[in-house]
């Protein structure tokens, strides 16, 4: 095998067990600006992340090139890095799961469609964005990206796993202007079946998003009934569910310590980790340690079902890994692969009707700055609309929403039916929150 050299050197230098994660990616990005291809990018890259157990401790190193010199480098760095480690975490290289539920995340047809056809689609999108409404003063850009990724895990126990994924995304961004007020909007279509692309529909979605914000002004600062768009709910839930990581729990920094079997959200909320979801191009059938992934509820009808585990965190608690080992730089952390909020029955329009008077929050910005993931407290720049008499009303200009994630999750009174797969693989719907502090004027 191509990587035998690495495993041979590792053994020779006293590494007890070793693993190599190989990821190769070929990507194409095309951007249009003012009627011409402004940027055309071809990415052909690889990443080789090696780890091994030396004197009972994990050491790791990574490189984006593999050859015999680099194999030697990886092994030496594993040894030197392992030598300084002092934590007592169990170090485990996985022998393999009994069964893997392989899921197809690769579409042959995507690569067969000509580049010209894809470029034609971009030109068509830019044209539609310009002509729908005269208040669209600029098309900031339209982009097409296509990515073919292969992820493999090889280890000294003989485990060999490979998953191939491909997907495209098509996006457009516009600037709308009216009476000196400027607003922007952006939308993205993701998938691996290019025949699903509907340029006209995408263009209208983007333009309508921008136009709807014009004429907006700050609302009165107070608590409102609120509908959160799928993207906003996803942003909140991702931070919240991080607390189900066994690593956070073991390190005393989780809001879910001692909460298994207890209520952590409203009864309306069921959130699953669904790495084996059909039709989701980001599905993963093994994790970054080679453990088979599976679908599982994290929160069911508001009740925390259990923690998510990697091999090391599972060994510490005397349980088995849940297939949630995820590589974070040099270390395996714990995280869900594809969050899925179980949808309800009401359409978004019905949610607005149910709220009657309130706000609809479509976007939050600066999550890294305005969200304290540790405490759950947040104060975020937001975009949205007033809901008046059960219908969307004028846009809201320069507002914040603030609160605590625990309260938001407990205040959800309805989950919508408008499920949407988002970039990265999470699937969320709109929700109604019974009260949310909005800061405006």
């Amino acid at each position, binding site marked *: 095998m191509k990587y035998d050299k690495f495993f041979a050197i590792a053994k020779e230098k006293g590494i007890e067990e070793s693993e190599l994660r190989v990821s190769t990616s070929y990507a194409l990005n095309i951007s249009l600006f003012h009627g011409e*291809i402004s940027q055309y990018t*071809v990415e*052909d890259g690889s990443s080789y992340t090696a780890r091994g157990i030396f004197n009972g401790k994990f050491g790791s190193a990574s490189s984006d090139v593999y050859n015999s010199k680099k194999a030697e480098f990886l092994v030496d760095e594993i040894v030197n*890095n392992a030598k300084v480690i002092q934590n007592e975490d169990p170090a485990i290289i996985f022998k393999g799961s009994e069964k893997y539920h392989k899921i197809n995340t690769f579409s042959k047809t995507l690569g067969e469609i000509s580049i010209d056809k894809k470029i034609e689609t971009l030109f068509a999108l830019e044209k539609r964005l310009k002509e729908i409404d005269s208040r669209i003063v600029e098309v900031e850009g339209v982009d097409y990206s296509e990515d073919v990724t292969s992820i493999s895990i090889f280890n000294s126990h003989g485990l060999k796993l490979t998953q191939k994924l491909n997907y495209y995304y098509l996006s457009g961004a516009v600037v709308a202007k009216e009476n000196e007020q400027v607003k922007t909007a952006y939308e993205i279509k993701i998938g691996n079946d290019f025949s699903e692309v509907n340029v006209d529909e995408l263009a209208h979605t983007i333009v309508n998003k921008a136009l709807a914000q014009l004429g907006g002004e700050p609302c009165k600062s107070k608590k409102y009934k609120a509908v959160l768009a799928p993207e906003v709910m996803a942003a909140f839930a991702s931070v919240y569910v991080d607390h189900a990581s066994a690593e956070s729990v073991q390190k005393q920094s989780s809001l879910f310590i001692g909460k298994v079997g207890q209520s952590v959200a409203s009864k309306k909320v069921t959130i699953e980790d669904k790495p084996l979801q059909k039709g989701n191009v980001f599905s993963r059938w093994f994790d970054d340690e080679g453990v088979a992934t599976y679908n599982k509820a994290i929160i069911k009808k508001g009740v925390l079902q259990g923690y998510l585990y990697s091999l090391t965190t599972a060994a510490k608690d005397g349980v088995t890994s849940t297939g949630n080992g995820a590589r974070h730089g040099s270390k395996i952390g714990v995280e869900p692969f594809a969050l899925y909020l179980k949808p309800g029955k009401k359409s978004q329009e019905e949610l607005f009707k149910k709220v009657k008077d309130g706000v609809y929050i479509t976007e939050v910005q600066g999550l890294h*700055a*305005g969200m304290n993931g540790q405490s759950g407290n947040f104060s975020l720049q937001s975009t949205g609309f007033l809901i008046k008499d059960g219908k969307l009303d004028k846009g809201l200009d320069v507002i914040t929403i603030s609160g605590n994630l625990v309260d938001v999750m407990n205040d959800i009174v309805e989950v919508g039916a408008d499920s949407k797969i988002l970039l990265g693989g999470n699937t969320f719907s709109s929700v109604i929150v019974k009260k949310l502090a909005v800061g405006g004027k």
Partner: protein
Amino acid sequence: MISKKVALEVLNEALSTGADYAEIFLEDSIARGVSIENGKVDTSSSVTATGCGLRLLKENRTVYGYTTDLTRNGLLKLAATLKKSFDGERILTVTKFDLVKAKNRNPIIRSYNDVSREEIISLLRIGDDAIQELKDPRIVRTISSFSYHHRDVTVYNSKERWFRRQTEFGRAAYMVVAANEKGFETGFSGPGTQTDISYFTKKLNLKDIALDTVRVALQNLEAKECPSGVMPVIIGNGWGGVLFHESCGHPLEASSSFLGLSCFSDKNGEMIANPVVSAVDDSTIPGEWGSIDIDDEGNPGQKRQLIKDGVLVGNMIDDFNGRRKNMEGNGASRRQNYKFCPTSRMSNTYIENGKSTKEEIIKATKLGLYTVGFNGGSVNPATGEFNFGCSEAYIVRDGKICEPVKGATLIGKGFEILKDIDMVANDLAFGQGMCGAASGSIRTNVGQPTLRISKVFVGGRGGELK
């Protein structure tokens, strides 16, 4: 990494279909890092970046690609793929390369390649031991980390220039999670430098920095929630410059400004700020976190005046985006690594000293907010709408700093805020950060003296300010 002969061959192959510029960006870098969690060494890592980026330009069009196959054949294959984007006749042939000379303001004195992991760990322990010795039961998790990089870049371009740039930089970080019956709070400090490791022992007191991180986390456990509404806000020096970075720095990058996509597009010569505001982006400050001797297009680092006495006078410009205004780049072309196409970016961006003092500003404020610690933020350059989060803040009453508050987020529109800055002090300082944008995550310094914005919207959970 490759010979000049191969570089000539690759560039000429790339130029054969009519590109008016071609550039090879070769990189062989290594990043290492160590972290100590709850007093024990938890991770030690080594990551290399080895590859080649090839950029072709034709008028306002860019074609970019990268590969990790650095053989002659691998690079010629990449050139052959990329040149297909153009279908014209050759207009340019490269015959030689002249070395670009630039001042070496950031010399490598003692390379991180010669510093052992043990020495790095001992350095971190100066601060980490101080935290552990407190034995404060409210401190539930601590992570002390150090990351250090050696970057080795060689560029050949069709302007017949070549240069090799070796840079090193290191950053220490202390992160503390504190908890009590009310919940969790965190504290963070992350000083960095382009000078060698001695900076952390000779110029900084890591013990004080680590203990200050604990102080902020513990203070926030007890602090009240920040009130919400429009109020005067005094922004502390140093890291407070993140406000200018977001609200004004990004919209002044040629990549948005020269494309007509910024709230400051075509406003040069206009009064865009209060006359007390002058601002600069300066990549020539020796050893500073955001400094560069020579940019990715071979232009030397420069001091760029952005705003002078309230008037917009300059931008961060790279050669490519400069084409839209018939301007040369001013040394602002940067990228994270060979995987990214370069564009105009900031370096050390700051508001210059004014004539007031910090004390005068506080004394002159009847009721408002004083913010001294920040989490970072983001901006939409087209609308100018920005946000940034505060990690340490106090209420100011009758000219005095009073109780601490937590959870404040400042939001607004950059072009409005600049006009509302009404007092600027004389205590300029810098803070080190990583800035993420189109060409990846790069080192940037933010900076400013203490200043006051007469009115800005503060988001918080504490109700009305009284």
